């Protein structure tokens, strides 16, 4: 059976696609909530197929398999081919698995929404696109998936499009992504011109043969630009906080667990190219570390329950970039997986809170929800501990593997390790603040709100994810590097995870830092009984700036958006009106003038015509005589 599914791995993509089409055409008739169950089933089946197809890979007995679906653009080396190897298998399981849980949750969350079925059309379409992206065997199919997930992100962020802020957020996401895609495309073009094809088998097998160090750096940096856009790193992260306008399941699925990890996945996939260029790898890791720190500081000052998580996502993605940048690909992918678990959990929990609080999203107006929403509270506590890096929860193992790999490389990498360490403390701080302000302390909510627990269809996925966040980390510990062995065939230039006493020492240090962060936040916030920030680092100005994300949006607006609008206005009113219309109308005028000039030839006098005919005939004869031909 595994053989069958491996050969027909495209089923994984087809199943949610069927869901999309069926719900698109028949959604209205199927109605809620059956449409939601159909969508969840399709993606659940994808997970199932992936699981069975992955069994030989688990046993370590299978080779990477390329499934050929159809010929597409042979000239580019772009055929519709899917690659089934440990890395893509892991991604499929994470995407489809977490995705199924989120789909089920969304049945409850989106209950009563007017466009319920349309929501699931988009969700299944997203699943199709993301699975295409991770299963691709050449850059062209990857890019197709890449663009499609961007489209779905736009559709789902601006789902409640009647709200202007939602529509604007959707546009912002798409446009910023496009900027990243520009770099990505140029990188692909360089790849194509060097290798003559876009297929992974040719390009990634041994790129060193054709790719010099300089070109490899260029390609690496250009692909990084694309990854920065998709995975919200500096400087193209600005769309992610605004993307919280979308429904919470969207935030959980796309902007936490799956789409934003596409950039990390892409860098991991092209690891053999990054191995050729130290410069590019250092840039990747540095951007990751800096973004992690930067986003963590902003998260500390946010008061919207989802925005804290949004900046947290950006920060954790920074960790993943740090991981793949230091050639610790397994660590980076491992953190991708654990982050999917606890971040999706956090978002879904936030959604449960929002749902129970009648759409209130300001954490300063919450508090004391522990007694009212037990299940949510417990799962959120688990998630907070996981993301803070407390053992034995999942986040500890993955984050620490990244940090120790960075440390082990020495030199500049130690600086990055230090940044990552500090950020870990900040992470623990702001997550604890988030949890405490929401669930503990005295109730601070407005009158008329009656917090209640979410229905089973929402809390069961929470519990499943909490379980995963607890034990998920154990698949790759210094005791037994299970994931590393599993992923080994996918990465040819693997630096094996460091082991030994240093690792434990570093681990102890990071746990200590995390505990400090938790402790500080606990002291500061657990006694808050007023709906305002009671402690602002004694520097109100700095705190305000952090709260407004350092006003980066305004900076971009003045630097980039305003000139763009000027160019657009010039093009429309000057260039289009005067030049283009001038040419078109001018052509018409010229034709008319020529016609007027030629009109007198038709005088109406037969004899003039006869003269012309005779002259023409004579001309012909003379010509024939002159050229001697007939």
């Amino acid at each position, binding site marked *: 059976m595994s053989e069958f599914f491996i050969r027909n791995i495209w089923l994984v993509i087809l199943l949610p696609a069927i869901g999309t089409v069926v719900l698109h055409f028949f959604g209205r008739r199927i109605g809620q909530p059956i449409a939601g169950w159909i969508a969840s089933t399709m993606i659940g089946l994808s997970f199932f197929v992936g699981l069975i197809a992955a069994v030989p890979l688990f046993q370590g007995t299978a080779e990477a398999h390329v499934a050929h679906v159809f010929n597409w653009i042979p000239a580019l080396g772009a055929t519709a081919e899917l690659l089934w190897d440990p890395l893509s298998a892991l991604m499929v399981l994470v995407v489809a698995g977490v995705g199924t849980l989120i789909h089920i949750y969304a049945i409850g969350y989106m209950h009563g929404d007017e466009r319920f079925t349309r929501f699931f059309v988009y969700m299944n379409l997203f699943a199709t696109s993301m699975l295409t992206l991770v299963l691709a065997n050449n850059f062209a199919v990857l890019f197709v998936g890449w663009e499609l997930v961007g489209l779905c992100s736009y559709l789902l962020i601006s789902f409640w499009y009647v709200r202007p802020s939602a529509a604007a957020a959707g546009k912002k996401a798409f446009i910023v992504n496009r900027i990243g895609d520009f770099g990505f495309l140029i990188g692909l073009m360089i790849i194509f011109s060097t290798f003559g094809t876009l297929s992974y088998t040719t390009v990634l097998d041994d790129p060193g043969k054709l790719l010099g160090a300089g070109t490899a750096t260029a390609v690496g940096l250009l692909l990084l630009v694309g990854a920065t856009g998709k995975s919200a790193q500096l400087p193209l992260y600005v769309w992610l906080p605004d993307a919280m306008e979308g429904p919470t399941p969207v935030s959980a699925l796309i902007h936490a667990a799956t789409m934003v990890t596409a950039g990390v996945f892409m860098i991991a996939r092209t690891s053999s190219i990054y191995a050729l260029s130290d410069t590019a790898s250092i840039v990747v890791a540095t951007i990751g570390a800096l973004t992690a720190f930067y986003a963590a500081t902003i998260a500390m000052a946010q008061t919207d329950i989802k925005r804290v998580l949004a900046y947290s996502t950006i920060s954790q993605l920074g960790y993943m970039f740090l991981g793949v940048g230091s050639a610790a690909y397994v660590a980076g992918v491992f953190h991708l997986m654990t982050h999917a678990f606890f971040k999706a959990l956090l978002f879904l929990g936030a959604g449960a809170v929002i749902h129970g609080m009648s759409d209130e999203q300001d954490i300063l107006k919450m508090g004391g929800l522990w007694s009212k929403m037990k299940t949510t509270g417990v799962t959120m506590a688990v998630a907070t501990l996981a993301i803070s890096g407390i053992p034995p929860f999942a986040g500890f193992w993955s984050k620490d593997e990244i940090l120790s790999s960075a440390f082990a490389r020495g030199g500049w990498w130690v600086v990055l390790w230090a940044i990552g360490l500090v950020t870990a403390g900040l992470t623990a701080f702001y997550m604890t603040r988030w949890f405490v302000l929401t669930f503990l302390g005295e109730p601070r909510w407005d009158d008329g709100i009656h917090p209640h627990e979410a229905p089973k269809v929402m809390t069961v996925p929470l519990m499943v994810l909490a379980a995963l966040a607890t034990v998920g980390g154990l698949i790759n510990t210094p005791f037994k590097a299970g994931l590393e062995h599993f992923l080994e065939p996918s990465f040819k230039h693997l630096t094996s995870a460091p082991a030994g006493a240093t690792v434990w020492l570093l681990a102890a240090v990071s746990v200590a830092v995390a505990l400090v962060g938790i402790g500080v936040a606990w002291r500061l916030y657990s006694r808050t009984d007023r709906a305002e920030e009671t402690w602002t680092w004694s520097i109100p100005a700095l705190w305000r700036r952090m709260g407004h994300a350092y006003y980066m949006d305004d900076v971009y607006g003045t630097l980039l958006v305003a000139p763009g609008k000027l160019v657009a206005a010039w093009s429309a009113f000057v260039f289009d009106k005067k030049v283009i219309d001038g040419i078109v109308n001018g052509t018409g005028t010229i034709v008319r003038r020529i016609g007027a000039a030629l009109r007198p030839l038709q005088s109406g*006098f037969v*004899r*003039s015509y006869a*003269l012309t005919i*005779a*002259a023409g005939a*004579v001309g012909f*004869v*003379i010509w024939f*005589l002159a050229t001697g031909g*007939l």
Partner: protein
Amino acid sequence: MTELVLFFLFGALAIVGALAVVFAKNPVRSAMGLILTMLSLAVFYVVQSAYFVAAVQVIVYAGAVMTLFLFVIMLIGVDRSEDLKERIPWQRPLRYVLGLVVLGVVVAVIVGNDWSWVTGISNLTETPVGSAEAIGEGLFTKWVLPFEATSLLLIVAAVGAIALAYFPAKRKERE
């Protein structure tokens, strides 16, 4: 010898008739000139052993067609002279020039005397006699298709002419 005399005599007559066609003020005189030319040409046909064609030329062309012309001239009115005012003055010199050029060109072709491009010749050794038998034989074997086509053409022309004449102009009805 005989042929030479005939050539010069009837050639001159033919040219006189042609000039009459072009330069006579009275259309009837033009028609007469044309008949003279046609008869001269009939003589030339006989000289060249095209007996049947000569006969047809006299009977049909000079006899029937020219009679038709005369009928029409009679109908249209012979005493009406042309409107002498010249409307396109710049054409006058051009005409004469063109006439001369046409003549020059054709003569050049003849003087060149190159017959090699003609196709479909049967290459007999002696000049064929254009008797009724010979013409008939060619007409109904090798050239039967054009024969049938032209007979169709004649019917169509006759019907067309009748149609044109039968339906009077609308203006006449209103009068």
